[in-house]
């Protein structure tokens, strides 16, 4: 990976030329090593003892806040897989790249991982924007991306396995629950101003109006990073909705809940259901500031099942007792395991074969419980409603049946 070319040492062209020549020879020697054609017919970085994968998240920049958990979970899964003998007898080696919260950097690093490093799979991306930036590269180079974040749907690439929920899985079950349990009729929709909240709220509005027979009394978007929600709290008081349905993200999240609480909009008077607060965000918001509100997710750290307690134990053993695990972290943890299962089912690292083997794949060791890969490469999953506790955890108050992923929901577009 140490590349000797420099962008501007114009005085040393000869050394440059030598460096490049040496490099190309090196590259050839690395990938010429034989790995049985049956497990690797497309020139991936697979030897008899080792397989290289990529990890592509933001370790720096504004998104590092969110992506740190995913990086940790993927590492943990890979270590556990290696400890249990690796994949098809090969140890997994990770090349980690930093997308630096910058979408072209994501694209550049994705190209590097696929073209130069020939990685067999990439675990990475967090925001939709970064996924959209790398998608054409994965399709062109026929790479394989495991994408962990719950997202807006409207996408289905043969080169991506989506381990988080698409919007309808997360939203519809949550709305059904508040409508039934809380008898909610009026809803106030609100989010940060970008594609995921807007798409989610669109789906929510259709469901509220067409299926639940309820009414949307307000729909609002605030710029990313907005910290002033005083006018909003007043508008909410004016409209008196049964439910606030929120998808505010990032630094705005903290400001929003602190100001909500200060304005006297607390769980004893108001029901609030959010799509965007996991245990990670609660660290910044402070559990006491939104205690009693609800979140709709497929996973909470407090889930009570043997898979999860083992996962939480391992995670804390590695990253310290204060570490928390949010929905996306768990979904990221699934990535390497799903890949391992698919590779072993296919008996090959070839992307096409792995993808083909993925459909219908079942995993009953997932911390969230049982998951299954759909033909559309999203996961069947359950949606849970968690109630925020003052200690920064959620108490699970409801669990749905297994929900089919539907990234292009008819009637909701």
């Amino acid at each position, binding site marked *: 990976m140490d590349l000797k070319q420099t962008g501007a040492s114009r005085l040393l062209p000869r050394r440059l030329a030598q460096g490049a020549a040496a490099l190309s020879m090196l590259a050839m020697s690395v990938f010429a090593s034989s790995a049985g054609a049956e497990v690797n017919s497309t020139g991936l970085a697979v030897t008899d003892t080792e397989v290289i994968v990529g990890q592509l998240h933001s*370790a*720096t920049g*504004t998104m*590092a*806040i969110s992506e*740190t958990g995913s990086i940790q979970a993927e590492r943990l899964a890979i270590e556990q897989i290696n400890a249990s003998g690796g994949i098809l007898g090969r140890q997994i080696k990770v090349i980690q790249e930093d997308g630096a919260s910058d979408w072209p950097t994501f694209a550049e690093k994705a190209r590097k991982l696929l073209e130069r490093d020939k990685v067999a799979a990439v675990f990475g991306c967090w925001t939709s924007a970064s996924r959209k930036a790398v998608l054409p590269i994965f399709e062109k180079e026929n790479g394989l991306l495991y994408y962990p974040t719950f997202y807006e749907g409207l996408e289905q690439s043969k080169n991506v396995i989506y381990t988080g929920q698409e919007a309808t899985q997360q939203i519809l079950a949550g709305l059904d629950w508040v409508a039934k349990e809380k008898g909610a009729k009026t809803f106030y929709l609100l989010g940060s*101003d970008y594609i995921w909240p807007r798409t989610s709220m669109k789906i929510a509005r259709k469901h509220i109006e067409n299926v639940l027979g309820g009414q949307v009394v307000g729909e*609002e*978007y*605030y*710029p990313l*990073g*907005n*910290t*002033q929600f*005083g*006018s*909003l*709290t*007043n*508008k909410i*008081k*004016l*409209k008196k909705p049964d439910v606030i349905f929120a998808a505010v993200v990032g*630094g*705005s*999240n*903290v*400001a929003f809940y*602190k*100001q909500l*609480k*200060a*304005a*006297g909009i607390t769980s004893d008077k108001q029901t609030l259901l959010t799509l965007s607060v996991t245990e*990670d*965000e609660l*660290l*910044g*918001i*402070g559990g*006491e*500031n939104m205690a009693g509100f609800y979140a709709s997710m497929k996973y909470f750290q407090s889930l009570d099942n043997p898979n999860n307690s083992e996962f939480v134990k391992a995670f804390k053993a590695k990253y310290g007792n204060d570490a928390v695990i949010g929905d996306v972290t768990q979904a990221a943890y699934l990535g390497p395991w799903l890949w391992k299962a698919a590779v072993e089912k296919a008996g090959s690292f070839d992307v096409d074969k792995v993808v083909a083997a993925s459909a219908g794949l079942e995993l009953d060791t997932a911390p969230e419980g049982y998951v299954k890969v759909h033909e559309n490469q999203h996961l069947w999953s359950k949606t849970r409603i968690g109630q925020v506790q003052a200690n920064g955890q959620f108490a699970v108050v409801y669990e749905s049946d297994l929900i089919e992923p539907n990234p292009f929901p008819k009637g909701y577009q």
Partner: protein
Amino acid sequence: MDLSLSDFGAIAIMQGFNGLSVFCVLLLMALGLAIIFGQMGVINMAHGEFLTVGAYTTFLVSSLTLRFLPELQPYYFFVAIVLSFLIAGALGWLAEWALISKLYHRPLDTLLATWGLSLVMQQAFRSIFGAREVSASMPDWLMGSWMPTDTIDIPLNGLFVMAVTLLLTVAIFVLLYRSRWGLQVRATVQNRVMARSVGINTKKVDRMTFALGCGVAGVAGAAFTTIGSTGPTSGSLYIVDTFLVVVFGGAASLFGTIASAFSIAQTQSMAEFFISGSMAKVLTLSAVILILMLRPQGLFSLKVRK
């Protein structure tokens, strides 16, 4: 919609309070910058990071109090504010000594150098406190709302920010316009050479002014933990707004800063109530820029004979 007249009155009162509260937030952010920019002509792009220093100091004090002296938890905030002022001020002092003092004759370059400083500080926060946001535990008396009637909720943290803003503004006014030190600062601003020749140590004045501005930013950061987030990049969320407030007010006038914070806050607060948050922001910023184009010196600036 079933809405009584008294409900409507209550909303109007709360909305009015909200405007005031946004005004205080803007003013608090801008005060430190107004001192530095107005008195020294220095553009401090790292201003947001000095806010963050205050926020992290508050977080540290809160954690330490919780761990070692939990019974004092309700009162730690006062200590945090003082410490924030001192730490941010000391860092500002250092920054002036190492960077700014070398660049006084190149105002655009201070802008660039302090931007570099802000990058370094952000990464330092990340290295020390981690990339994730943290949350200082708030004393109970700061959270919740004051309810003068059944329908009116006045947020306590908003009142707190207001009180801090008021105290700080008064303190700065007294310091600048009633103290001997303030006289030296103003003398230095008006005529550096003359000030030096009458025995004012202008270097020291500069350094203290910069440190004061940063210290005030630290206090603002501490106060903002009650209403906003604390993370490595939290401070940078405020920077554009802050600059606009100062520039809009007319750089050399503290009174201008106050007036400008007030008008921007009221515009934004009103606009947010009637249109969506995003468009309100665009509308406010555009209005400020338009007015700046008509009055490039800002709202308040003395007409002087040159």
